[in-house]
């Protein structure tokens, strides 16, 4: 069954708010920060107008916002929040706590660079700093994918075998504040896909009291960490399944859910990137193809869990990668490049990897720049 849509034009943040509205979370706790603010602004309006039956908790900081969401998640209800940049950093303690605590919270991060220098524009430095926090991270390429990923996110996070917070990332301003078309299913069809959160991964039971975050010895500690690692592996399959099921229901998929290939299966050069740069890269691939060059694209949609197998399989047939990072691990290199090189090396794939860091602090990355860089790398 493929459901009916209404094509509407809306910003990426509006798309995020619609997805949350349709998934009917019971608790939303959030604190405003540019460029995320309009997501929770819309949701507070929906709650105020009675369109959404949720507890909207107004808090004094992001740290408290996520703390309130953690409490809600522990009580076994669907939970949503959103943040950006400095706000995400201020949450840091609870980001790790909810990740390692396996709490199924859905929290879009509207990517914005980190200060100093003070700036409100996009790069991926904020969410990339939390890649070790035990959250699923999906990097979206357009307004439509923001909506779709959030609907899928609740299903993935709330699966008992996964039980993990879910962070859909969207580029600040270029998605969050840009108006574009979204094929919007109606509320009923959307909720039918997400479903009730009937079988909570954890639920406070006053008859049977627990300790949350109690002291543990190394043995239990390491067991929990290994459980998390195994759940991340299961999450890969879940993300692939969700992508497929979403496709059957809504008629749209994003590659296999973990990675998306654009252009020919085999090419002289593969451009690897995430977020809106990956969307723009498709125009670069088309441009280069017109010029007779053999270039394709591998978009990493899911960064956590990292799609090692998919990248390796693709690399076996493609000899040269150009990895574009929109964030830096200072003292090393772009995080995506580092991780791609690592998985190729340990799987004995000799695809060569070139890296470029682009688009920090909101610097524009036009497809012409991607194409010109690809040409230079091809010649090297």
């Amino acid at each position, binding site marked *: 069954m493929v459901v009916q849509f209404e094509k509407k034009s809306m910003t990426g943040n509006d798309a995020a708010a619609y997805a949350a509205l349709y998934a009917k979370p019971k608790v939303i706790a959030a604190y405003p920060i540019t*460029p995320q603010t309009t997501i929770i602004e819309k949701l507070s309006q929906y709650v105020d107008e009675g369109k959404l039956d949720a507890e909207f908790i107004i808090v004094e900081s992001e740290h408290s916002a996520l703390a309130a969401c953690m409490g809600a998640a522990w009580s076994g209800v669907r939970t949503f929040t959103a943040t950006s940049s400095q706000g995400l950093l201020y949450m840091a303690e609870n980001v790790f706590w909810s990740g390692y605590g396996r709490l199924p919270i859905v929290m879009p991060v509207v990517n914005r660079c980190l200060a100093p220098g003070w700036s409100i*524009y996009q790069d991926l430095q904020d969410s990339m700093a939390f890649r070790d926090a035990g959250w699923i991270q999906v990097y979206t390429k357009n307004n439509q994918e923001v909506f779709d990923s959030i609907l899928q996110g609740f299903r993935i996070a709330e699966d008992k075998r996964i039980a993990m917070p879910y962070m859909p990332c969207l580029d600040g301003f270029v998605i969050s504040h840009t*108006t*574009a078309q979204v094929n919007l299913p109606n509320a009923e069809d959307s909720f039918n896909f997400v479903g009730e959160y009937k079988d909570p991964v954890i639920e406070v039971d006053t008859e049977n009291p627990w300790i949350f975050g109690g002291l543990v010895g190394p043995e239990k500690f390491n067991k929990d960490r290994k459980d998390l690692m195994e759940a991340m592996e299961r999450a890969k399959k879940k993300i692939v399944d969700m992508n497929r099921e979403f496709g059957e229901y809504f008629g749209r998929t994003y590659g296999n859910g973990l990675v998306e290939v654009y252009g020919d299966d085999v090419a002289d050069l593969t451009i690897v990137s995430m977020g809106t740069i990956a969307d723009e890269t498709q125009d670069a691939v088309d441009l280069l193809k017109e010029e007779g060059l053999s270039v394709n694209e591998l978009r990493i949609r899911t960064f956590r869990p990292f799609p090692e197998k998919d990248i390796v399989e693709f690399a076996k047939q493609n000899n040269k990668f150009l990895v574009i990072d929109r964030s830096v691990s200072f003292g090393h290199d772009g995080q995506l490049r580092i991780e791609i090189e690592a998985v190729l090396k340990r799987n004995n794939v000799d695809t060569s990897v070139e890296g470029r*860091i*682009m688009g920090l602090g909101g610097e*524009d990355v036009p497809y*012409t*720049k991607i194409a010109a860089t690809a040409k*230079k790398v091809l010649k090297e």
Partner: protein
Amino acid sequence: MSLEGFSYFKEIPKKLYLMKKTNHNKDKVELMIEIIQISRGGSGGVTGAKILADAAMYEDKFGYSQAIPKYGSERRGAAVEAYVRFDNKPIRLHSPVYNADHALVLDESLIDRIDFNTVSRDGVVIINSTQIPEQFKGSGRKIALVDATRISQDLGLVLSGFTLVNMTMLGAFAKGTEIVSLGNLVKAIEEFWGEKRAPKNVEAAKRAYEETKMVIA
């Protein structure tokens, strides 16, 4: 690792990719239309760009559009740029518009903020003014002139001391370029503003549509 091997230090020079008038996309996809708009914060430019994108979505020949406000300086009274794209398929570009087909000037005193060397000579420049600005005289450019400030003020479209010329200018855009119909523009305005606030805004667009004068500078 020497810094030469480090991804951050291998930028290609801007001249290799920021080509003026590449218009690559337009050669490939004749349909894509790109618009640049300049306005003052408070006059409704960002909302106007969004509604223009909505109107283009209703056009059968387009169906897809994009409105990109350039944030950062959106204080009241400051110059605010916005960009709009129309196309017949989903738009994968996320950059600002570098080579516009048409330009919308909501405040004539900001006209120099747009580099008209990058605006297509076949396009239309829609200006909130009663006369051709000095720098365009003899240029042969197609100019759409409308006294948007007066029309908006006549209709009471003033908020906190700022005249809201956004809807008025969209009426002039529809007339001047003829790529978006007045009907679809009105539909987008009504959809956005809702029953209560739409009438004045629709009236502003309609009046501008009637009063806009097309001239060759």
